[in-house]
């Protein structure tokens, strides 16, 4: 971590205030970038908008998962430990398991926890995460593809939808809790 950390103790270079609002700030920044250059948007702006939207959703989910596992004030170092245990690839696999839920052969032990499978809210969030993960990869590495503003806006809409959906769920709602714990533990549950 070290080099990017300007305030020790919180990791990822975040102050408490920053850590609490990073995902929201990233989403706002993504919208600003997508609207930059109103007439002829530069690929750099659109690509950074898409990539930033993807990071906004990643940090939204990481933050919510860490708060689900470690609640209460004064527990930031512990929550930080949870955040660091999460990684993009495992989260994507967890999301794909949920979005590709097969009612005839459901994934265990998730099926025991959610016998009816993921609900619409969870499917909305996991679909957006998987879409944005690939779009982020294209935006950052694939120079052969060209992003249109309509595409960037559509991807931002997915990110907005993830925020609205997660914030619209009650914290005690079991589907929300199972979803967040799946992001962290899915890889280990499959062992």
């Amino acid at each position, binding site marked *: 971590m070290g080099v990017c950390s300007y305030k020790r103790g919180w990791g990822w270079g975040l102050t408490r205030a920053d850590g609490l609002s990073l995902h929201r700030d990233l989403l706002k920044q993504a919208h600003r970038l997508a609207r930059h250059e109103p007439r002829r948007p530069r690929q750099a702006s659109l690509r950074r908008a898409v990539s930033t939207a993807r990071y906004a959703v990643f940090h939204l989910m990481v933050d919510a998962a860490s708060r689900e596992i470690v609640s209460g004030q004064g527990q930031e170092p512990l929550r930080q430990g949870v955040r660091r245990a999460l990684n993009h690839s495992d989260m994507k696999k967890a999301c794909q398991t949920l979005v590709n839920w097969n009612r005839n052969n459901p994934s265990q032990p998730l099926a025991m926890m959610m016998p009816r499978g993921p609900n619409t809210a969870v499917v909305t969030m996991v679909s957006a995460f*998987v879409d944005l993960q690939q779009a982020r990869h294209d935006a950052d590495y694939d120079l052969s593809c060209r992003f*249109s503003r309509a595409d960037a806006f559509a991807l931002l809409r997915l990110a907005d939808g993830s925020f609205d959906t997660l914030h619209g769920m009650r914290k005690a709602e079991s589907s929300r809790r199972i979803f967040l714990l799946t992001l962290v533990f899915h890889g280990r549950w499959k062992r």
Partner: protein
Amino acid sequence: MAQALEMGFLEELGKKLDQLERPDWVRSIDTVEQLDADDELAVWIWIVVDTAMPPQEQAQLELAALRKRIRELLIEQAPGLWAYVRIKEDGDGA
């Protein structure tokens, strides 16, 4: 390891996608099979739009509705297959 899709699958899917209700300014809906960032086989569904689209706010509502119809079709026709739904302007390479 990724496995190839059945012969003719994309063609059939393409025909069904073509039959979906869509705005006039959506020129076509194209499908491409390729590996994604995790080396998993996936399908890209490109909504090809006219450069003369309605204002973004209106266009995005209609695109979101079309995306929903595409997802519903995929769940019905190809459960378990992941498809990335993206938008490009007519004439853009992708």
